[in-house]
């Protein structure tokens, strides 16, 4: 028998639990848990398409409505000089990456709060939850390609083949950046719940702050540089427009900065997430 009263008020400092997370090890864990990410993605998609009979249509609805709105109000009414002949095609090049990013962050940011049932019961790398939402957004984006194809068909033009050559690096930049921000936001929200209310406002500001409705190349070189580092979506959208609509090479200098920034954001987000991970179950 041990008397609880004989135990000190606090643990001796040398016992303090230090969680050592090596980046390589954590990434390897994540690779091991890849099946979980796909399962959770599948789950989210099932839920989504189960609740909504319109299924695929919902994934299309958001970009289509935005394109219509932008084309009518920005293209026709506001007459922004974009440097491109067709405003609808111009804006869809910005909308596709932006919609992916905003839905991944908007929903991925809340993913830990929404999965607290699982977080409280199952041991797994917690990043599978935000990352699976990024996966869902990716699937939705693929679906919304239908809208892109329809738009090009309606305009009876073809995107230049150059865009397919550049697609992979561009997707990679967007993915890394989105995953980094999703990890960062979702873990911070657990600790500071107010972010939840600020997030939609920030995303709305983001729509205007990202060159979705205006043209990136109109910025000065210095501003382009700052943009590429602060918001890698800018040069990616610019590259999409140049390659798909004009068939000219993208601005490689800016893309380089964007990739660097995306990589840094991803690792910072991952690091912060891993640091905060240990306290999730206490707070949820």
């Amino acid at each position, binding site marked *: 028998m041990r008397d609880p009263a004989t135990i000190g008020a606090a643990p001796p400092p040398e016992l303090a639990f230090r969680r050592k997370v090596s980046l390589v090890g954590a990434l390897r864990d994540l690779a091991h848990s890849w099946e979980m990410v796909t399962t959770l993605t599948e789950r989210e998609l099932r839920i989504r398409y189960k609740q909504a009979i319109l299924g695929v249509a919902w994934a299309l609805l958001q970009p289509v409505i935005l394109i219509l709105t932008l084309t009518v109000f920005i293209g026709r009414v506001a007459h922004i000089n974009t440097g491109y002949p067709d405003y609808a095609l111009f804006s869809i090049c910005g909308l596709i990456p932006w919609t992916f990013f905003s839905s991944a962050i908007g929903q991925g940011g809340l993913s830990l709060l929404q999965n607290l049932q699982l977080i409280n019961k*199952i041991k797994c790398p917690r990043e599978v939850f935000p990352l699976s939402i990024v996966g869902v957004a990716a699937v939705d984006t693929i679906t919304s390609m239908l809208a892109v194809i329809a738009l090009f068909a309606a305009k009876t033009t073809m995107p230049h083949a150059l865009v397919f050559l550049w697609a992979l690096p561009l997707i990679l930049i967007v993915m890394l950046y989105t995953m980094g921000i999703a990890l960062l936001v979702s873990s911070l929200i657990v600790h500071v719940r107010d972010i939840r209310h600020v997030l939609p406002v920030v995303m709305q500001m983001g729509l205007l702050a990202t060159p979705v409705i205006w043209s990136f190349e109109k910025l000065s070189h210095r501003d382009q540089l700052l943009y590429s580092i602060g918001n890698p979506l800018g040069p990616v959208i610019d590259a999409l427009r140049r390659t798909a609509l004009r068939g000219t090479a993208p601005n490689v200098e800016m893309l380089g900065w964007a990739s660097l920034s995306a990589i840094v954001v991803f690792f910072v987000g991952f690091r912060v997430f891993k640091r905060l991970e240990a*306290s999730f179950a206490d707070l949820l």
Partner: protein
Amino acid sequence: MLISSDSDSLASGSQVRLGAVRSDRVWKRFRADLRNPFLIDRLEYIRDRIRGDTSANYRWALRDVEFAIEPGEAVGLIGANGAGKSTMLKMIAQVMYPNAGRISVGGRIGALIEVRAGLHSDLTGRENIFLYGTLLGLKRKRVAEVFDQIVEFAQIEAAIDRQVKFYSTGMQLRLGFAVAAYLEPDVLLVDEVLAVGDSAFQQRCLERMRQVLADGTTLLFVSHDLATMEATCTRGLWLRDGALVQDAPIREVLGEYREWVERFAELGSNQEGPVKVLHTSIDGPNGGSVHSYDAMHVEFTVDSDVTRPCAVYIGVSEGPATPMFVARGAAQLAAGSNTIRATLQHVPLPSGRFFLWASMHEPGGGIAKDLVQWHPARAFDVVGPEVEDTPRAVVRLSPVQVANSWEFSAG
């Protein structure tokens, strides 16, 4: 194979044998006042930290807990509410991290910690089984192999393709348990949630727990049902105020625990209210100790503020507030001191220590006002035959024993 990793100092699955659980001087604290962590709470926390006062708002839920469980052991975790049992289970399940010390668990962990152990309400039963299997680190093929067993155990054949949110609580519990117990855990954690299920289901769960034990799985079991605990587990860990006070064979721990409950219980006999119980005594037939199958006299000395009719309930339990049997009497209390005597005939109790619980109410059935709350009034010892030993599969809900005789004839 496992979700555990080498990089994570907590989940050192590779260094621990499959099914082994070690808790190495574990401390865990919670912020006492933290409900929703908003920005303002964070700012206050930072302010406190700058002022150098960090410990004020914390409560230690576990303090210096140390034990090692070998693969295949059946361990019962006992303790009062709030003693830290569920926190301990969550840390063993590795969903929560300690503030100090280390926990290591070898292998896959099946945990039934809350009723819907990780079931997702928007998915069907089938999808949930596969999701949970993947989350535990099993391949889909392996899940498919045990799928039928899970469905059969949970008795949800008809509802397997229905969303879990349309399941009854019982169905969710059955599915939750089946999933945790059939997906080949090396360590099975079962919290007191089983009490929610009906008794037939509880029996099947206990049956299944014994099966997995026989297969070499380690079992950690939390329950307030001490008899079931005694029948299922071989070793007991007793947590009190977050400290591990005893780690011994289950019978020994339960014995100490019951005695502690009794000491605690006698403190509770001083009641405040319109009627006060001043004294309670329990005697055998001739004023001595109580004997099995014999009469038992209970006497209360009570003090009432006014003259009133009163219904008296007494019950006998092994400690907890749920009695094995109850007797009721009607009394007419005079203002001032009164004596109430009750006699229980043929007390069906074996040798051992039991508790008399009592309460007094205004007459009028279920919603009648309490005059004295249901409280443990007194402990008493019974002299008589020992409680019958039973094989593992026969679980007694309570050690009531009826005098019995047998006849056998061939043909």
